[in-house]
């Protein structure tokens, strides 16, 4: 097997599973350590730099980091990374002085950028570019900034004050917000002479469910995301006693839980697929069920029943899953009689779509066969070099953290474009690898492994939580729980670095390693090597670290999979062949340095 090139920035980055999985590559272990030390403000700033909305994401993120977390492979549950982020936001001191300063009007660089939509993608672009002297103007149909974060996420999950705070940090950088002014024509906007336009208008259209009865019973059938935003802005404050929510995504979960707070007593979620395949995150399903909302599965809506123009219920066909030889799932009739559920209102949350009625098709901006704008996945530029896309508007519905990641990349592209550089040449991330050795057995991080199981986030009692739609359900960790949960982090960014020249092959590391990660053996093909280690390396998504320069001609093979990063190999090494080195990678964001470095 080829020797491992640990100098390649990606190698150690992949070992930090959470950071690698995060679209914005937030340095997770770094901020978790700061939380454990009570340095909430510092932890917040690390987040703010990477993901722009720590308080919002700490409550609502889709958390791709958590399924990736190494702790989940070592014991059962991953570290509660997302809720620790919230801790940083909740307990930080005033950090306003640490934010970049707005560039005075007279000192700006003269370049003007229009940002369409005031959601996470546009705001990220504005945050990155405004401090560099760009004049950023954000347009939105709503009167307040935040986009879907404000309109579609219920207040009991994400209070307005958190959105206000974090959106204002950005607007205070000298970003102009023109609310209540939806952009109705891109052609007109371009004619206004902007140097660049960023489209972060989201995927604002809820998918229809066109089955019999839809028109007749329209009064009591609502499109989920529209209904949620009406609830958010206070236009709707009640719903019938019996509610059916159709759909199995996170929007459906928000719909059913909102219904419970607006008068819905018998609220149920009904999905086409099986419970396990539902798109909603497991914890959102749990939260819904905790509030007394059952989830029925394998039911395909067939017809809305109605009497005298009033909805009476929904009829479903019972299906079962069948798999063809390629493993593709097909839902087929289960051979059971149709089921009818009575209800007063139906919320349809079966998906979202992009819609760009305001983009003319004759302005040099091409659309593909699915009527989506052609966007470069690396630079986020459209076929019009002046127009960039990001967030849901770029590649369809995803989530906030992806929108932020897109925003950062688009900001780099816009900056390069407006300074006459090739935006396809992306500056490399900055990487720093530093030894953490403080003494013979002392490390600058806490290498003792906590055995604690994941701590539950305290919540308000259902009786109180269900009374008011604006009462936040989760209370968040207190400082003590936060410390205990933070201690579960394995510090995967503190890397085991091996230097073959120093090794005397005494086996001390092999003997002490609690996870049997390390083997000294003769090299071979990877597939063969994986079976010959002290413990078989069956997780093919995790790399083997192979190093040579040993006197016996063997190689050192370390399976990264379940390494606890406890540093015992380095403590036991008599020659310093093993060292624990902290790997910090700073992703490229638009800033002066990114240009000079390229």
């Amino acid at each position, binding site marked *: 097997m080829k020797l491992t090139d640990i100098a390649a920035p990606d190698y150690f980055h992949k070992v930090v599973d959470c950071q690698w999985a995060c679209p914005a590559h937030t340095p997770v272990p770094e901020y978790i350590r700061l939380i454990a030390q009570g340095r909430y403000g510092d932890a917040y700033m690390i987040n703010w730099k990477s993901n722009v909305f720590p308080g919002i994401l700490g409550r609502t993120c889709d958390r791709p980091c958590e399924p990736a977390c190494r702790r989940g*492979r*070592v*014991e059962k549950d991953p570290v509660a990374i997302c809720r620790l982020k919230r801790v940083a936001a909740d307990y930080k001191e005033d950090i306003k002085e640490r934010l970049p300063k707005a560039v005075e009007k007279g000192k700006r660089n003269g370049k003007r950028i229009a940002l369409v939509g005031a959601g996470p993608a546009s705001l990220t672009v504005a945050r990155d570019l405004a401090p560099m002297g760009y004049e950023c103007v954000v347009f939105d149909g709503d009167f307040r900034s935040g986009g879907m974060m404000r309109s579609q996420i219920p207040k009991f999950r994400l209070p307005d004050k958190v959105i206000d705070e974090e959106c204002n940090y950005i607007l205070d950088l000298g970003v102009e917000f023109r609310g209540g002014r939806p952009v109705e024509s891109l052609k007109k906007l371009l004619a206004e002479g902007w140097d660049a336009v960023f489209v972060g208008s989201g995927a604002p259209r809820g998918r229809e469910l066109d089955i019999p009865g839809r028109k007749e019973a329209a009064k009591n059938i609502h499109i989920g995301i529209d209904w949620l935003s009406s609830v958010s802005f206070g236009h709707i404050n009640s719903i019938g006693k019996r509610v059916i929510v159709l759909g199995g995504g996170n929007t459906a979960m928000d719909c059913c839980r909102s219904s419970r707070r607006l008068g819905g007593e018998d609220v149920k979620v009904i999905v086409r697929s099986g419970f396990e395949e539902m798109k909603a995150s497991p914890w959102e399903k749990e939260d819904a069920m905790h509030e007394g909302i059952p989830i029925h599965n394998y039911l395909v809506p067939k017809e809305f029943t109605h009497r005298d123009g009033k909805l009476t219920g929904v009829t479903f066909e019972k299906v079962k899953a069948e798999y063809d030889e390629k493993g593709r799932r097909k839902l087929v009739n289960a051979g059971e009689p149709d089921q009818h559920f009575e209800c007063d209102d139906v919320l349809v949350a079966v998906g979202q779509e992009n819609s760009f009625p305001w983009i003319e098709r004759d302005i040099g901006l091409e659309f593909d066969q699915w009527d989506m704008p052609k966007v470069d996945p690396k630079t986020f530029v459209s076929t019009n070099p002046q127009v960039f896309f990001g967030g849901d508007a770029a590649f369809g519905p995803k989530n906030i953290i992806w929108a932020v990641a897109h925003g950062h990349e688009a900001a780099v592209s816009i900056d390069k474009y407006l300074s006459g550089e090739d935006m396809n040449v992306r500056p490399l991330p900055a990487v720093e690898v530093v030894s953490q050795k403080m003494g013979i*057995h002392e490390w600058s991080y806490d*290498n*003792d*492994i906590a*055995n604690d199981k994941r701590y539950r986030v305290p919540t308000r009692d259902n009786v109180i939580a269900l009374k008011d739609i604006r009462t936040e359900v989760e209370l968040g960790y207190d400082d003590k729980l936060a410390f205990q949960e933070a201690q579960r982090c394995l510090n995967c960014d503190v890397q085991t670095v091996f230097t073959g020249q120093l090794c*005397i*092959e*005494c*086996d*001390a590391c*092999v*003997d*002490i390693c*609690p*996870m*049997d*990660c390390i083997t000294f053996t003769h090299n071979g093909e990877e597939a063969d090597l994986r079976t010959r280690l002290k*413990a*078989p390396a*069956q997780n093919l998504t995790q790399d083997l670290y192979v190093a040579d320069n040993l*006197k*016996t001609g063997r190689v050192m093979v370390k399976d990264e999979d*379940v390494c*606890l990063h*406890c540093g*015992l190999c380095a*403590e*036991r*090494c*008599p*020659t310093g062949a093993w060292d624990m080195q902290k790997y910090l990678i700073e992703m490229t964001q638009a800033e002066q340095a990114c240009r000079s470095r390229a």
Partner: protein
Amino acid sequence: MTYIVKPKFHHPALPKNALGYTHRDYEGSVSTLCAGCGHDSISAAIIEACFELAIEPHRVAKLSGIGCSSKTPTYFLGQSHGFNSVHGRMPSVLTGANLANRDLIYLGVSGDGDSASIGLGQFAHAIRRGVNMVYIVENNGVYGLTKGQFSATADRGSKAKRGAVNNDSSIDLVAMAMQLGATFVARSFSGDKEQLVPIIKAAIEHKGAAFIDVLSPCVAFNNHLGSTKSFDFVRMHNEAVNRLDFITGRTPITVDYEPGTVEIVEQHDGSKIALRKLNAEYNIHDKLAAMSFLLHHAAEGQIVTGLLYVDSDPDDLHAHLATVDAPLNSLGEKELCPGSATLEKFNASLR
């Protein structure tokens, strides 16, 4: 040593033995020896051997004397019996324990100071009596706890860390053990678990006095140029005569080897050892030849390792003394006080 406790988490795919234990279940508390000490590797080899043989931990008694090596029983088999005796007196305590309870597996762990200096007499007599045990000497050629003076096994002409030359002749415990009648004699190296683990397994299965001399470099005081017990020196001068590929219970061995390269050694209890010969001439049953081979190579500065001598039909102290088959603690009043008639009969036999 380390300041943190070894984490209890283990690899999710760790193999389990017939008892359902992983090798982690055979560990003791975390070692306080110097980082990189050869002794820790020997502890790991003992753990591995007991795990592979699926030995119930409560069936093992670990006994030791004084010294770095004698500290190690704390670091393996945390669920087994243990006795840390006076300096050099491990062999007599072990002998006594063995006489009292013949059902346990006796693991004597000692060092070159403990066995070749202060306890040389004890070592000799326990071997001579044929106590059924595994006697492991963790041999590093220095007194590590007193900062690196030459021990009795340091080779003449070898150098201490500061350059002093050793002018005394060395004691070769392997040669002594053979001469004293050990029925299983082996030498190995802490840095070669592939050789060491099967040797320990075979020694545990052997019913008789099994002696293993394990070269175990002292990283703090005896791992320099001029030492003959350093990692580099041992690796360069290792003359391995054979390798134990595996040992079995009573199941027949069905692996094909080139004729003449493998010898199947059947032990007294029916278990078998597959011995891969590295030196075709070497005969593990010929004690005289073995001793001459040993002396010849020692003179050339070579270290002979492997299973060096085995008696296929050994006996032990209990056989010599015709002791009762059961452990003493299992004997009831009836067996211990057989009554006046029996006493009469016994007294009559002495008249």
